[in-house]
């Protein structure tokens, strides 16, 4: 029995886990950095503790401080969320040493899957197909990589052995580009994971990214909750996910699902995890990696299978047997998730920081939002640009897309730029609607047109002009221009309402 769980994370996922705890009657402990005092995960928690300055390395990555808070607050378990300490076997081990349950797999399973080179070798032995690439388990030196590269063939991918989320990953099309890509991948991996080791993998051309959600209890039962289609990516970061996938039928789902179960059993895996596969044009699939944690996109699986993955994680960590049986898992309808990032899609997806001054969320049938945004929250440059997830369900894929369009139209955020226009354009794209895309689609064939909606631009011009006109007419009578504060729009609105 857990009475109190510490959530070693921030943002929307910390909130998601706290919600599960609330429903289970478990108290929550939040940790936060200097800049997150006003964050929703602190406000929502039962207890909250400051653990250091804004940079992750000095706060959310400080295992020692987090364990100290766990001791002080009397937490029985720690949920790591995703990112930060979620896939660090030393942290999982430190929790065990403290007598605190780590809600996730055993340290040995994290280690085996965490080093992507070791993971490839391990699952291959268990009969799981892998993408051709560098063999062996150790970190390779630049000279070794350069000599192996021509045997694998181009195009290929440089990937961080500690990797995840596309960080420290580079596509290399020609030998000449290899050394530059190695340097920049190592640099990014070093910054993100504190480990610059990389390996090579052949680039599977025209591949789709399909992953299988697993649940494994501590009594040897492993089930899968079907697939997620995650091919809509940019710079190897997923942007839109859906479940089911438009290209997977029941037979392929079963084959991928049972291979995924095998891969998990190869490392005696416990708790929730995800096996990522590449699916080529001929429907051959290859193990890519295992994410030994909760995924960002878990809600789409929850919605189509009617499960609560976070609550299942907590039950499993309590030592319970899985209540769900493989044969009882059915996918119902279709779910799509759009990741909302604070970035400007019209300016090379440059991260956008600032204070969210206004936010209005879509509601209505089939809409779920997992987000940590509120009016007045500051989006800082210290963490990931993901500020929320919009998830829509429909009876069919078509209905899910139409509903997503409707919900995106209703979503209003001012203060930071968001990628909502990108999502809108994707929901209108023929290729997306037709389900014919691979992981290169966004970067190679998808053009975000600035001019897609000339009529809306005209209306925007009218509204801007009317607002300015009213302001000029009314403000001149009351205050001189240079005495107005910057938020003169507030003033106009007040004036407007007074006149009614």
């Amino acid at each position, binding site marked *: 029995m857990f009475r109190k769980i510490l959530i070693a994370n921030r943002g929307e996922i910390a909130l998601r886990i706290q919600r599960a705890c609330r429903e289970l009657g478990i108290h929550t402990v939040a940790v936060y950095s200097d800049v997150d005092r006003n964050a929703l995960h602190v406000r929502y928690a039962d207890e909250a503790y400051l653990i250091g300055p804004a940079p992750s390395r000095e706060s959310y990555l400080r295992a020692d401080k987090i364990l100290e808070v766990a001791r002080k607050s009397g937490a029985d378990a720690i949920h790591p969320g995703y990112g930060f300490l979620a896939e660090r076997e030393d942290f999982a081990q430190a929790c065990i040493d403290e007598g605190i349950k780590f809600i996730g797999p055993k340290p040995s399973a994290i280690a085996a899957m965490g080093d992507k080179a070791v993971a490839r070798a391990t699952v291959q032995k268990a009969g799981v197909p892998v993408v051709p690439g560098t063999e062996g388990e150790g970190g390779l030196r630049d000279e070794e990589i350069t000599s192996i590269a021509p045997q694998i063939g181009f195009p290929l991918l440089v990937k961080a052995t500690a990797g995840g989320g596309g960080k420290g990953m580079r596509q290399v099309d020609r030998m000449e580009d290899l050394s530059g890509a190695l340097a920049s991948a190592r640099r990014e991996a070093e910054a993100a994971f504190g480990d610059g080791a990389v390996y090579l993998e052949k680039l599977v051309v025209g591949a789709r990214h399909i992953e299988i959600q697993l649940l494994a209890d501590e009594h040897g039962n492993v089930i899968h909750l079907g697939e997620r289609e995650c091919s809509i990516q940019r710079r190897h970061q997923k942007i839109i996910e859906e479940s089911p996938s438009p290209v997977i039928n029941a037979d392929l789902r079963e084959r991928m699902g049972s291979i995924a179960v095998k891969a998990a059993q190869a490392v005696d895996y416990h708790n929730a995890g995800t096996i990522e596969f590449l699916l080529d044009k001929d429907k051959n699939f290859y193990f890519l990696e295992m994410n030994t944690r909760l995924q960002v996109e878990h809600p789409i699986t929850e919605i189509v299978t009617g499960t609560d993955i976070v609550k299942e994680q907590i039950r499993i960590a309590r030592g319970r047997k899985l209540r769900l049986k493989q044969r009882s898992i059915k996918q119902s309808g279709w779910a799509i998730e759009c990741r909302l990032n604070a970035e400007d899609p019209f300016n090379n997806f440059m991260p956008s920081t600032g204070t969210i001054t206004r936010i209005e969320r879509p509601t209505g049938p089939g809409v779920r939002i997992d987000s940590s945004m509120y009016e007045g929250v500051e989006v800082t440059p210290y963490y990931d640009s993901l500020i929320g997830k919009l998830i829509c369900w429909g009876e069919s894929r078509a209905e899910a897309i139409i509903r997503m369009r409707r919900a995106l139209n209703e979503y209003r955020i*001012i203060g930071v730029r968001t990628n909502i226009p990108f999502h809108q354009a994707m929901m209108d794209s023929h290729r997306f609607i037709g389900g014919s895309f691979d992981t290169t689609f966004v970067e190679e064939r998808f053009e975000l047109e600035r001019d897609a909606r000339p009529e*809306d631009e005209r*209306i925007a011009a009218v509204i*801007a002009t009317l607002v300015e*006109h009213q302001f000029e007419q009314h403000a001149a009578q009351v205050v001189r221009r240079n005495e107005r504060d910057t938020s003169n729009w507030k003033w106009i609105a007040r004036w407007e309402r007074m006149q009614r």
Partner: protein
Amino acid sequence: MRYVTTIGERQYTIEINRDDQITIDGVAYPIDLRAIDEATFSLLIDHASHEALVETSNGEIQVLLRGRQYTARVEDERASRLSRSGSGLHAGSGEVTIKSPMPGLIVSIAVSDGEAVKKGQTIVVLESMKMENELKAPRDGTISSIKVTLRQSVEQGQALVVLT
């Protein structure tokens, strides 16, 4: 009152003579604009209903309509004529300072002093929000000064490189 409103590269000439009617590029439309709250405006234009969030900052008006944010500059006609006649002097000449759009770490400087660059060419790579972001030249020019060094932490708005 006649206004010239600019969004991106397009200009709209909008005339407001009555509270309930406007003329856009010569065509008259009945309108009704209401402030719902401090930022939300509801517009009926020829009975078509639109709702937008509006915010002003630094002389620009941000309009968020159906998921997309438009940056508008509204000038009355006289001011617009003045600014147009002046703008020819500056186009394409003078210094451009490339500033950091956000706090971050300089992880690569792709140009050197005195180098000629093309519009869109990568100037520096800034790491922020755990991602590497390429800052590109806004126009063709020559690098006249590099104000940062590799691995330097920079603040938002800090000058990085000057282009002439």
